[in-house]
């Protein structure tokens, strides 16, 4: 379960401070698919970055399964992410110098997991890319790269999967496959999936939708979410 308490984020812009997120509270229950929507500059990605511990809030606390990640050091956060959170980016962000299988192996190796090879093979099979395992990112299509990224995000079997515009850089057919893959992951593994999207079709598939505008939650729908 994710709990955001009185979270806000302001950044310096020239001589003034710019508020990206106004103080907000949010609770996301485990096991669902949550879509965060809103126009550009509404604070969606900032919110996701805060949940992943990639950024620190200007005020408030973030609890993930009871652990206060806002109180953690950089390195403790990194270890926490390694075991508890998977992250999928709009621009895939695979390591360009590593092959597909090696990209999937990296989080396993960082965590010191036993037998990372077998596990990575299984994950690539799960996203349907066994045949492309020794290809470099530059030799893969956008959709394939994103599937490798999803396999990588699932490497340590995290209870929480965060995705920032996962279909934003893909054509609609490929985007569709990726959406299906994320839904499957949620169904099969009971992984909580939180995604940021512009894509109405993708948002419609979510159990819950949270709409942001100018750094404020303007609408939250369906079961499992409570916002103010």
């Amino acid at each position, binding site marked *: 379960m994710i709990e955001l308490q009185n979270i806000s984020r302001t950044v310096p812009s020239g001589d003034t401070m710019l508020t990206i997120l106004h103080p907000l509270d949010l609770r996301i229950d485990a096991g669902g698919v949550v879509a965060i929507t809103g126009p550009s500059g509404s604070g969606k*990605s*900032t919110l*996701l*970055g805060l949940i*992943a511990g*990639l*950024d620190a809030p200007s005020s408030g606390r973030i609890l993930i399964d009871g652990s206060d990640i806002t109180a953690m050091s*950089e*390195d403790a956060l*990194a*270890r*926490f*992410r*390694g*075991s508890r959170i998977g*992250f999928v*980016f*709009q*621009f895939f*962000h*695979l*390591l*360009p*110098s*590593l092959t597909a299988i*090696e990209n999937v*192996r*990296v*989080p396993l*190796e*960082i*965590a*010191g997991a036993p037998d990372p090879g077998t596990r990575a093979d299984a994950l690539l099979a799960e996203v349907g890319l066994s045949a492309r395992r020794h290809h470099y990112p530059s030799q893969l299509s956008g959709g394939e790269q994103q599937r490798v990224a999803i396999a*990588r995000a699932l490497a*340590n079997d995290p209870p929480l999967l965060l995705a*920032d515009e996962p279909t934003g850089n893909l054509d609609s057919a490929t985007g569709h496959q990726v959406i299906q893959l994320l839904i499957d992951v949620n169904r099969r593994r009971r992984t909580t999936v939180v995604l940021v999207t512009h894509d109405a079709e993708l948002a419609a598939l979510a159990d819950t939708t949270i709409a942001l505008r100018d750094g404020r939650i303007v609408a939250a729908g369906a079961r499992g979410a409570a916002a103010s």
Partner: protein
Amino acid sequence: MRFVLLMAAREVRASWRRLLFFFVCVAVGVGAIVALRSIIQSVRTGLSREARAIVGGDVAISTNRPMSDSVRAALEQAIAAAPVTARVDSISTPTMARPEAGHGVAAAKMVELRGVNAAFPLYGTLSLQNGQPYSHDLLANNGALVRPELLAQLGISVGDRIVIGGRAYSIRGIIAEEPGRRAGSFSLGSRVLVDLGDLRASGLLTYGSRADYEILLKMPPSAVDGFAKTIRAQFRDRFIGVRTYRSTEDAIGNDMARAENHLSLVGFVILVLGGIGVWSVTRVFVRQKVKSVAILKCLGATTGQVLAAYVAQVVLLGLSGSALGVLLARIGIASIPPSVGAALGVSTYGLTGSAVVQGVSVGVLVSLLFSVVPLLEVRRVKPLLLIRGASPSAAPARAWWTVGGIRDRLARVDRLQAAAAVVMAAGLVAIASWQAASLRVGVVVVVGFAAVALVLQLASAGLIHAVRPIARAKSFALRHAVLSLGRPGNQTRVILLAVGLGSFFVIGVRVLQSNLLQQFSVQLSESGADMFLIEILPDQVDRVRAFLEARKAADAGPPRLIPVLRARVTGVRPAGASTFRDVRNQGREYTITYRDHLEPNETVMSGTFWSPHSPLPENAPVIEVSIEENIHDNFRVNVGDVMQFDVLGRILPATVTSIRKVEWEDARNGGFMFVFRPGPFAHAPQTWIGILRAPQDPTARGRFQRDLVTEFPNISAIDVREILTTVQKAVRTITIAISVVGGVALGSGVLILIGAVAMTKFQRVYEAAILRTLGASTRTLGAMLGFEYATLGLLAGVVGGAGAMAFSWAVCRHVLDIPWRPQPFVALAGAALTTLLVGVVGVAASYDVLRRKPLGTLRAE
């Protein structure tokens, strides 16, 4: 740990092309260190193995003056008491040789005549040409063995006879190699070997003539040190020296160790140049890897793990670069022609284990030291940039020379990076000191580097300021070139540092080299004296003067004949004191003279020089001496003090009446540390030397020498012209070696430049694409790059050239003690070449920036 190693290996696999330059920088420096050390270690091992042959026996007892009967008796008694198993007596003396009348050319040559008895040689073998075996019988009945060059010089061959000291010897063989005589070691003439009895009977060994008397002994190793110690203690004051093969081994070892350490510093200097390259590669590499670092952090890697992966990568690169360096050294050594090895006195040389270990460790250490500061940047990478892009760093608004500006900048200094920089400097001092085996030299080298680097840094800041007005120039290319120099995160400083240091080193070596060569040629070309006569006996002085007056060169002044004696300083008694104090270096012998006037190259610093034509009585109780200013400094002697001399066994106190300054560079008039007031030595045993200008035509010169020797068989003529030619040859060989080392340094400088330029490419590609889209032609882009790099090259060349001038001045004045000639042409040419080189390399290395289609680039960004 597994992650760290795997990541490092994968990154190297992926980026090896980009890191090739890192690799090359390390390899060149390590190669230089390993090759130089290996060669010298091989030479050292070879020479130590031959220590017995070099000494000529287990123990060598030698003196350069005939022994008195009582000394001889005592020495023979000591030798009889020792477990001696074999003994060689040997005498060598420089003298003149000419062909027998009617044979060969009309010339006489200086030779080093050596007489030996039947037991020679105790160790090693005397090898003769054409496989002829050596036996002492060859020397019987006035036989002689000679070096091939003497035969060529005199135009004679085996079977002919040569005349030495009025005695004819028939040539029975040609010496190929004499045990213990190192090729390339300095000698006044080529070797002529005769029987000891014949030499003794020749009449050449008159009292006061210059000869070395040696007794070589073979004895069990256990007896060597004790015997040498006894002899040393017993004959300390008798001008008798003792060497053993062990002390020689040590002396060779020490000399070679010093040479090895100093030469490997050259390798270290190259490696530091490479280190700057490593720094620049790492800096750019880290910048290119920012996104990967962010991804790894996002996937759960801690900063420590990421840092460890990159450090492991640096170690891997340092190791493989060092391995390549070892390979380069191996190839380099294999390509040395065998003749060079023979000249150094070694038959085989190869890589030595200790050289390889040292080279590789220095290579890895330098890679680590130079990359750790830029690598620490990864600490600052935030995974957030993956979703938000890099946040711009706020540039300090206040100018750097204001108090606030300095405070802003200090606040931005990363403490860990600053600490790492301090560790790096300390590490470099440690490595340099280790390589030079001297903390002082290590500190001097690193501080020197830092000083030049600081000047280059200041110069680059100055340059960016100075060229700013050009940013208003009409030419678009020029305007943008100037803007590029001040662009944030550019390579201006790295290029200036690398190329500036490189050109400093290379131009410095060239200027020094021309100074050395000119020094010798100046001495040759001046129309002064070019021949010295030695061993003139007092009763020959008038006849020799007459001979020289009749035969001297047309343009020469009167020949000068000077009496000389040899003396040691045994004590100094300050004015007013009653006892003599001991002085350092009592064993050193000085050549002294007496005369009643100052020479043109002398001036009196204090006291008064005696007036002409006022000799002291021969048995004067107190004699007078004028000393050179170095003696005044070294012995702390002043006017009025009394110095005590041992002149051929006579102990003489002399009052110092004046201190002279001698212009040693104008040594045609001779220079003496001690000049005595005439009188007391008038009838002491002495010889005279002659200083003259001999006929310049080679045939006339040869005839002059031969006639002189025919008339005065005991007199030797030293041809300065010939010696200077030999020295020039030696200098030229050294010059080649220096140029090779300098060339390697220049080469690494160029490599670093190419690397630095290549590193900036990813930034330029994008800019070029935008400028292209806005309508800039290839020509405009090329001109922009050309202007930018030429400006950089000009500055690096000017700073390097100016530094080189300062460096050569310091070395000439304070190390080599020769006058400094500024060589502005060499410095200017160096600066011009640097400018051209940097401009051309800069444009050429950016070739694909000019060629690439803009759309692809813009899309990729």
